[in-house]
């Protein structure tokens, strides 16, 4: 058997210890699909949960939990986009849609999202729903930040691909 296997004291279901190339590839595909499904489910549940909270006037800890899950979903999405962009593996259609905006457009889009969110928050704070107002403001700030991150990820992805092509041409 070629190579030596590192001794491990602990492995779990996510570990690829002892797997050969086919098994590792299959495991990675499964992990990717699960991550994507977890992201989509978390996003949908947090949005629906928050909408329901607005009607039942939920306690602050509940709102904080929902907001945390939403933030975690957004962060995971951004982390994936950044890593994929660094490797140049964002699919062509998505990368094009991220990067076709120039910086001014990205700033304007993010600004509009933030203004909309803050306006909604302002309206809610007047109606004495301060907690919901804060959450809406935080949500809109997170979505604006995500917009920026994706814009730069699209540009980075294109740069990585251009650099790879340059190396092949030399």
């Amino acid at each position: 058997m070629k190579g030596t296997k590192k001794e491990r004291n602990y492995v779990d279901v996510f570990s690829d210890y002892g797997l050969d190339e086919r098994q590792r590839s299959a495991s990675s595909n499964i992990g990717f699909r699960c991550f994507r499904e977890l992201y989509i489910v978390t996003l949908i549940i947090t949005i629906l949960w928050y909408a329901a909270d607005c009607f039942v006037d939920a306690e602050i800890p509940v709102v904080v939990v929902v907001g945390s899950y939403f933030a975690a979903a957004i962060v995971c999405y951004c982390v994936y986009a950044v890593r994929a962009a660094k490797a140049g593996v964002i699919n062509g259609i998505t990368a094009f849609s991220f990067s076709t905006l120039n910086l001014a457009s990205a700033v304007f889009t993010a600004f509009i999202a933030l203004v909309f969110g803050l306006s909604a928050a302002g309206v809610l704070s007047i109606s004495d729903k301060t907690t919901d107002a804060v959450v809406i403001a935080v949500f809109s700030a997170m979505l604006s930040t995500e917009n920026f991150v994706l814009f730069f990820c699209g540009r980075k992805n294109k740069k990585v691909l251009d650099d790879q092509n340059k190396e092949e041409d030399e």
Partner: protein
Amino acid sequence: MSQQTLAEKAGVSRQTINAIEKGDYNPTLNLCIDICKALGKTLDEIFWEGD
């Protein structure tokens, strides 16, 4: 040579060798070379499809 023996010599699992033989998995070039070395054959002799 059995699948198990070939798998051990090539450094993969028996299931992978079986998947390659059934056409369910396309091995990397490195694995193709390892299989050829294990069998003492060339790439053409093992992996080239007939005309």
